[in-house]
């Protein structure tokens, strides 16, 4: 196609020009940067300023609605000596690790179940997405009833069927049960998204691979272990990492349900930062708490980056 047009002189020049022009834009480096620049500018404009502002705040003694004074790392030093801060850090770790593991394992299980053939499949698939769809503030309010000892089905059954003593377990009053409860709610809410994402991943695995393995006599477990899991790995990895980030900075669920109680047993970084900055009017210290999530999350991101480079 290119060689035939070369015989005519002036159009040929134009074509050559266009081709050079095109080749320039088709170069990987140029094309890539043209693509990524607009979204990057968008993110930089809307997130860059707030991010710098947050760091700037954390280095100040800064009461709300007043001018601040620069105090260097004082706020972080204060936090290091704050027992509640360490409690909050421990809570956040437990909450994130346990909920993420439950969501990942449970989500994979749900994806495997939904990947099978059964009647009303689409309806069930959509219905199982509901916890993820319903606005968190409203679903958390429903959980408030479900966990109320006077109304909880578990307590009702224990008391009325098995004759246990009233009022039964205090799901949000006992510090340990409260943590377990919020983890279960977080799992309930996040599980469907894992499932739908992993289901999408499962469906990109060519059926021939499984068929071939079956012919070779591989067991179900072996097919899962050696075909499904490795091919799903990139998707599992990405979803898990982001799930960790979102769980780490969870706010709405705790804020509606316990606001950190009983006695800080469910306080997380985000709710603690919010209380200090909003209720207490200490922006600098609040920003410092909020930024304390940076090092652990940065570690996760570094792991991600290394992983992606190895895979990519």
């Amino acid at each position: 196609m290119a060689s035939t047009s070369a015989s005519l002189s002036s159009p040929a020049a134009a074509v050559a020009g266009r081709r050079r022009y095109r080749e320039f834009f088709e170069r990987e480096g140029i094309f890539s940067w043209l693509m990524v620049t607009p979204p990057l500018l968008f993110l930089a404009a809307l997130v860059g300023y707030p991010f710098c502002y947050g760091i700037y705040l954390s280095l100040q003694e800064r009461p709300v609605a007043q001018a601040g004074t620069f105090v260097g790392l004082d706020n972080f030093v204060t936090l290091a000596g704050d027992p509640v801060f360490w409690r909050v850090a421990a809570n956040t770790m437990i909450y994130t690790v346990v909920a993420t593991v439950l969501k990942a394992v449970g989500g994979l299980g749900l994806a495997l179940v939904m990947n099978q053939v059964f009647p009303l499949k689409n309806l069930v698939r959509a219905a199982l997405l509901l916890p993820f769809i319903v606005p968190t503030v409203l679903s958390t309010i429903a959980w408030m009833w479900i966990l109320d000892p006077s109304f909880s089905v578990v307590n009702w059954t224990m008391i009325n069927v098995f004759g246990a003593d009233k009022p039964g377990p205090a799901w949000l009053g006992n510090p340990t049960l409260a943590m377990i409860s919020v983890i279960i709610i977080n799992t309930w809410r996040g599980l469907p998204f894992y499932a739908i994402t992993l289901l999408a991943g499962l469906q990109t695995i060519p059926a021939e691979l499984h068929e071939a393995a079956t012919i070779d006599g591989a067991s179900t477990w072996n097919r899962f272990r050696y075909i499904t899991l490795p091919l799903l790995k990139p998707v599992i990895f990405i979803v898990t990492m982001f799930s960790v980030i979102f769980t780490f900075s969870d706010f709405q669920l705790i804020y509606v349900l316990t606001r950190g109680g009983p006695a800080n047993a469910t306080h997380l970084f985000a709710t603690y930062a919010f209380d200090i900055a909003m209720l207490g009017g200490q922006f600098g210290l609040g920003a410092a708490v909020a930024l304390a999530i940076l090092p652990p999350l940065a570690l996760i991101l570094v792991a991600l980056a290394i992983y992606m480079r190895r895979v990519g």
Partner: protein
Amino acid sequence: MSVIKTSPNVPSRRDLFRLAAAAGVGGLGLPRGAAAAGVTLTFMHESSFIKAYDTYMQKTLVPAYEKESGNKLRYELLSVGSLQTRVTTAAETGQGPDITLNFFNWPYLYNEKYIDVSDIAEEAGRLNGGWTDSVKEAVVVDGKWKAVPFGNVGQLMVWRTDMFKAAGINAFPDTWEELYAAGVKLKVKGTPLGFELGHGFGDNHGWLYPLLWSYGAAEVLPDGKTIVLDSSETAAAVDYCRRLFKDTMNEEVLGWTDPNNNKSFLSEQISCTNNAASILWFAKNDFPDMAKMIAHAQNPAGPKGRFHILAPWSHSIFTHSKNQAAAKDFLRWLMNPKQLRGWLASADTYYAPFLKAFDTDPMWNIDPRYMPYRDSLATAHLPGWPAPVSRETSQSVAKYVVVDMFAKACAGASTREVIANAVAQLKQIYGQS
């Protein structure tokens, strides 16, 4: 003409008009409202749990004000817990509503972003028998009124007369010890007490600070510096609280936030709680039979007296408002008994006014059961009292220092340990660690 056409930056005639209005209605001696005609004021409020109260503003006061002043008034309603976020954003960015509602010590927190409204507050006081002294803790900052007080959302004892009677108690206990004795009997009957010990906004502070004070204890001295929480009085209060929790309540109260005790009381799970008048109000609408058996009482007394929490609602004007003069006129208009009485009455006196002239107002006759809310004002103080309002007292509330001290004791920690923890937190907050 041509200048205006070519340059969009030249203020329009309406803007100029607004500027003129803002520059000083009073100064020019113009009749109120006339000069400010055409401005729009935004008045930000938390949605009251009494719908009729918001409706009264929307359907009666707003049209009346708009007609009298020629201004527009936007009554912006926010959900519970959202107001402070919005006030903070407005104060920080210098944009948003002209007038806002405040709770607790906000006039102090946002002091620099609120204009001085001493003239309005003092005039209202002069015309209405003066202000209850306690409210000044919350609204007067450095000698200036930064907000005009509106009413107190008292936290009092709400109890079921029939359940108490069934346990052989005919009047509400006068002291904490008597309440304990009553509570033991009530719990045996399957109708325990239920006081919030979790991280709510108000129902926890509402009884735990008064409990602390009534045993003669405090976090900090009136000098605002000396931490005195580590005392035998505090220990006595903590020991009492642990007993009260163990023998008269169920474990769930440790995880409660503000709606839980309402739900528990209305579903007849508990015989007594510490709350605002919202329970009785709701029962009157939805459970009229139960409502007949609900009564209010002041907090019990301790060895060192009887105390209550001060939970004032007040109104402030932002310094960023372009219509400060009109906003002040509006507040002055609102504080006129003609308007104020109607608004207070629409809420069944849920908001107890701080103006003494209203103590004898006929609105209290609607239901005398609300009277304790009026009578408790004299012994009401802000969290952190007797220290003056400060950033430190705000931090202590935000970190639930006092609430968690009690809660941890109830969950099993030793008195010595929980006090030591609380003192360590206070030292850190006050920069003494």
